[in-house]
């Protein structure tokens, strides 16, 4: 089992910096995800780890060994491409055994190992099918088996589920997680689907414009985003710009266009700093007239969308900024007419104050 | 002897029969390819630098262009004939000697052995008109009533017009030596040809074209090679006939030459000796309708053929004295003439 270290890794294509000073360590056996918008450099990081691109600066180590100058065919990694890249002219078992074939194993051994792996991915006896006869999900599993056949220390997966439809995607997520837990191989997983990253990973790295924004567990990222980008990219958030007027007991008091509001101050802002307050739509509620929560915002109802199981309340603050509240479709909503005035409340612990930087 | 010999010959000269007879006698296999015009054989051989064939059969009068081309390319196309290897006495001496006047030798060395001779006269559809050797004139084909129904070979067409205008053929002969005369002769001929171009249905170049003109394209009169015409005569049971005009039919002699790049030289001589023997020449005369250079070859012809001969040249071959021979042609002359031809063709 080998851990992976990226030490201040940068990669430039000509003038363009695709990855900027990335430093992180991925533990052996971890399920680690990179999450970020399209073009932020996720694939590039993966290609550097597997050896298809060389970093312009910095060092990549696998199991402590510097990988510079080592080709993809000599690294203990296996890459699963976004589109799987199964060999369409080989049968399923030949695909799985390809890595063994080029290592010179006998046909019999190849076949035996392929059959073992077919059992593992729950496709026993399907080795003689052609790849094109498989369903999308089955192909997915074959790609994984092929990558695992050469017993890599690390499995790299580049948005492997993005081509699948929703139902199948949900199913495959569970499968992937199960396989990872069964084999104990390090999984490095790329996605721009936050649901995917959050439900599957031990840890997540959120990227933006080539840089790492935050590396943490999913719960941490959702609950305590480190930057404004993370706060807005992961999940929905109501942002309120302002500046810090007071700091007390781990909380900051912000002066915003919607009034003076309190929020957690995990990033140690000081008085006078420009800051953003974020509060998630589901942590807000329509305040009873008699309620007195810590934070209250006066708004007017703009629209009420019924979307299946949820109700989304869109409201607009007095000075024009929008505010969204999510409620489950089990409440009495008769009083929430268009243009009705409502008070929206949330607790100070549900909100977080962050430095005012770029949002997603 | 054994082996093979590659022959490049005119269409319809060498029959399957002749090749078999020769092979049975000598054990040599003949590979035959055919061409349709003198220029074709010359320029193909030029493009192949004299390689690929062991015997070629251009007209003797065209050999001058071969010598010129060889000099221009710095690569002789033909090799001199070793006359000691020819079977003595089987070729008609007057023909053998005549060939020297037509250009069979270069600087005294012989390059072409006469193989046959023939004429270019008038072919006609006897259902539409009648011509006899005493009265037929080159001018007959230009009559208005045959407009759009005549076939002519551009090269010999201009020549026959020149001959017709000239009457004696004297100026035409001079044209071969003097560029200014040549221009004069051919511009006059061209003028006549242009005026009468609507008469022409087909410009033929090869024997195949010619046959098509009379069979598929419905021509009723025109210039033709005697052999081709005689073959049509036979095919059509005398509907298509042939006659030598009184101004003199255009007469040529074809030779047997050995290219410089020939590989089967021994076999080539063997074939030359066969083709100039009474047997080979006779078979050729029967097959092609042309006249062999071999002594006694005419004995092979049947009565019908003899009869035809009399209808063409007169009962005693009177017209033969009148023949106009193609002169040895230098490169400049054929280029000059082909300019006039192109003008005629493309007008």
């Amino acid at each position, binding site marked *: 089992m080998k851990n992976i270290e990226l030490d201040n890794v940068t990669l430039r294509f000509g003038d363009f910096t695709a990855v900027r000073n990335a430093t992180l360590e991925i533990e052996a056996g971890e399920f680690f995800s990179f999450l970020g918008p399209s073009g932020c450099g996720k694939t590039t990081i993966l290609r550097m780890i597997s050896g298809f691109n060389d970093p312009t600066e910095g060092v990549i180590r696998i199991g402590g060994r510097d990988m510079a100058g080592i080709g993809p065919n000599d690294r203990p990694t296996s890459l699963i491409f976004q589109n799987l890249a199964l060999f369409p002219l080989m049968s399923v078992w030949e695909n799985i055994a390809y890595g063994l074939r080029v290592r010179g194993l006998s046909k019999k051994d190849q076949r035996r190992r392929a059959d073992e792996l077919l059992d593992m991915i729950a496709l026993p006896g399907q080795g003689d099918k052609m790849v094109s006869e498989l369903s999308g999900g089955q192909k997915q599993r074959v790609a994984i088996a092929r990558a695992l056949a050469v017993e890599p220390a690390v499995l790299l997966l580049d948005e492997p589920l993005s081509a699948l439809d929703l139902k199948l995607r949900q199913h495959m997520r569970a499968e992937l997680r199960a396989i990872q837990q069964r084999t104990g191989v390090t999984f490095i997983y790329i996605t721009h689907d936050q649901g995917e990253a959050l439900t599957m990973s031990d840890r997540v790295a959120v990227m933006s414009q080539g840089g790492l924004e935050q590396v943490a567990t999913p719960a941490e990222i959702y609950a305590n985003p480190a930057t404004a980008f993370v706060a807005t990219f992961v999940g929905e958030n109501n942002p309120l710009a302002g500046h810090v007027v007071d700091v007390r007991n781990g909380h900051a008091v912000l002066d915003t266009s919607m009034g003076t509001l309190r929020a957690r101050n995990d990033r140690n802002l000081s008085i006078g700093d420009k800051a953003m307050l974020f509060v998630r739509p589901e942590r807000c509620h329509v305040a009873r007239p008699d309620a007195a929560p810590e934070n209250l915002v006066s708004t007017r109802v703009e629209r009420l969308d019924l979307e299946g199981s949820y109700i989304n309340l869109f409201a607009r603050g007095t000075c024009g900024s929008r505010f969204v509240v999510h409620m489950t479709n089990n409440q009495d909503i008769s009083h929430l007419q268009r243009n009705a005035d409502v008070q929206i409340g949330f607790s100070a612990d549900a909100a977080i104050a962050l430095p005012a930087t770029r949002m997603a | 002897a054994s082996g093979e010999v590659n022959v490049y010959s005119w269409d319809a000269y060498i029959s399957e029969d002749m090749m078999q007879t020769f092979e049975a006698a000598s054990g040599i296999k003949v590979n035959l390819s055919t061409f349709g015009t003198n220029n074709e054989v010359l320029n193909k051989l030029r493009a192949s630098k004299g390689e690929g064939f062991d015997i070629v059969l251009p007209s003797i009068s065209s050999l001058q262009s071969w010598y010129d*081309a060889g000099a221009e390319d710095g690569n002789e196309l033909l090799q001199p004939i070793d006359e000691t290897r020819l079977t003595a006495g089987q070729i008609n001496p*007057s023909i053998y000697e005549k060939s020297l006047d037509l250009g069979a030798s270069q600087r005294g060395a012989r390059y072409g052995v006469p193989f046959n001779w023939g004429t270019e006269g008038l072919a006609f559809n006897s259902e539409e008109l009648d011509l006899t050797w005493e009265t037929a004139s080159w001018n007959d084909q230009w009559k208005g009533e045959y407009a759009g129904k005549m076939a002519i070979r551009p090269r010999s067409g201009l020549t026959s017009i020149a001959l017709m205008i000239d009457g004696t053929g004297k100026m035409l002969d001079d044209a071969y030596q003097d560029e200014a005369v040549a221009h004069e002769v051919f511009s006059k001929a061209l003028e006549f040809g242009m005026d009468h171009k609507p008469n022409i249905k087909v410009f033929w170049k090869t024997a195949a074209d010619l046959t098509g003109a009379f069979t598929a394209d419905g021509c009723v009169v025109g210039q033709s090679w005697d052999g081709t015409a005689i073959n049509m005569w036979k095919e059509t049971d005398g509907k298509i006939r042939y006659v030598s005009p009184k101004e003199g039919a255009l007469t040529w002699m074809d030779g047997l030459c050995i290219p410089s790049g020939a590989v089967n030289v021994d076999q080539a001589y063997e074939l030359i000796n066969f083709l100039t023997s009474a047997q080979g020449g006779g078979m050729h005369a029967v097959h092609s309708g042309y006249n062999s250079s071999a002594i006694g070859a005419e004995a092979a012809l049947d009565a019908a053929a003899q009869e035809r001969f009399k209808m063409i040249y007169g009962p005693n071959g009177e017209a033969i004295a009148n023949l106009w021979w193609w002169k040895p042609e230098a490169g400049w002359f054929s280029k000059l003439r082909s300019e006039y031809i*192109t003008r005629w063709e493309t007008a």
Partner: protein
Amino acid sequence: MEAISSFRKRYGAILTAYVFVGCAIWLIGMIVAPQLLMVQKSLMYTDPAAAAAVSQMKSATDRLFVEKGRAERELRRIEADIQTGGSAGADQGSGGVFSPFGSTAKRNTGATVAELEQRRDALTLRLGQIADEIAANDAALVQAEKAAKPRVRLQNYFELFSNDANRPIFFKTIWSSILVTAIALVVCYPVAFYLAVSASKDTTALLMLGLIVPYWVNEILRTFSWLMLLSTNGVINQALIWSGLTDTPIDWRGGNSAVLIGMVYAYILFMVFPIYNTVETLDRNQIEAARDLGAPRWFIHWSVVIPHAKPGIAVGCIMTFMLAAGSYAVPVMLGSTTSKWFTEIIYDQFYEGGNWGLGSAYAFVLLITCILFIMTMMRLFRVNLQDIAR
């Protein structure tokens, strides 16, 4: 260099070597160098007057040699006759007399020894003169040959435009090729459109098969089939006469018409397929949208289909034009006395006239013409090479 190294990184040394060597052989050895050499050849020009002079000198020499040979042979016979004391066997020299059948020997009987000796002396004298004349000729030839050496000149190109036999043919060929292209376009557009848009899937497959079959049939045969139809005693005339519509055969092959018919037929499919390919990519919804917005049929073609099919039309026109202008088989087989095609002139320069320099020059002019046409079409229809070669 960068290309090689990045290629090598991807494919390894062996494959990289194969790819680069292969391309180099093809590009340089088969495409560029032969064209350049052709151009070089086209610049080589020999002064025809000088060449004629050389040739005339040589043939004069040849004639002298013939005379010399005959004189020597006669001399030998006379010597022999003198030896035998004036026998009656000397041949008068058969030089001028042609007697193809029967014996030719006109024996000059009864010459005396004195007469023979007189003749011998005359001949000996003449032989001496001949030797002098040959020597003089050979000396002059050296100079003449120098003048007749080929030189680099643009003369071959001027020739095309000064030669009033060839120049009209050149322009006629270009014009006729444009005509063939235009006719093919008009005939093919509806076919391509129908195939791409109107026909159902199964019919399209069948019709495509119907197009592919003649497309694959040899060009020679396609042309030959029209020869059979159009000749004076051909099928069309036979049918017309049989049906009583006419009693004299019609000359279908007069002028250019047969060549044009044959070319349209031979190259029409090179027009159908490119247009079909582009029309096929037209979203049928666009046609329906236009119809939904009230456009009549012809206007839909004018405003929606044809603009979309432009690249295909350009490609079809380029291919058809290029094939027509460069066609040799069709005019040779279907041509009449007045239909000469420029390619025939080029062929004649090579295989009739033996003038490779002029032939190369003409060929190069044809090539330039085609390139100009292609570039014009590409400009006009705003297409690029990638569209053409599909």
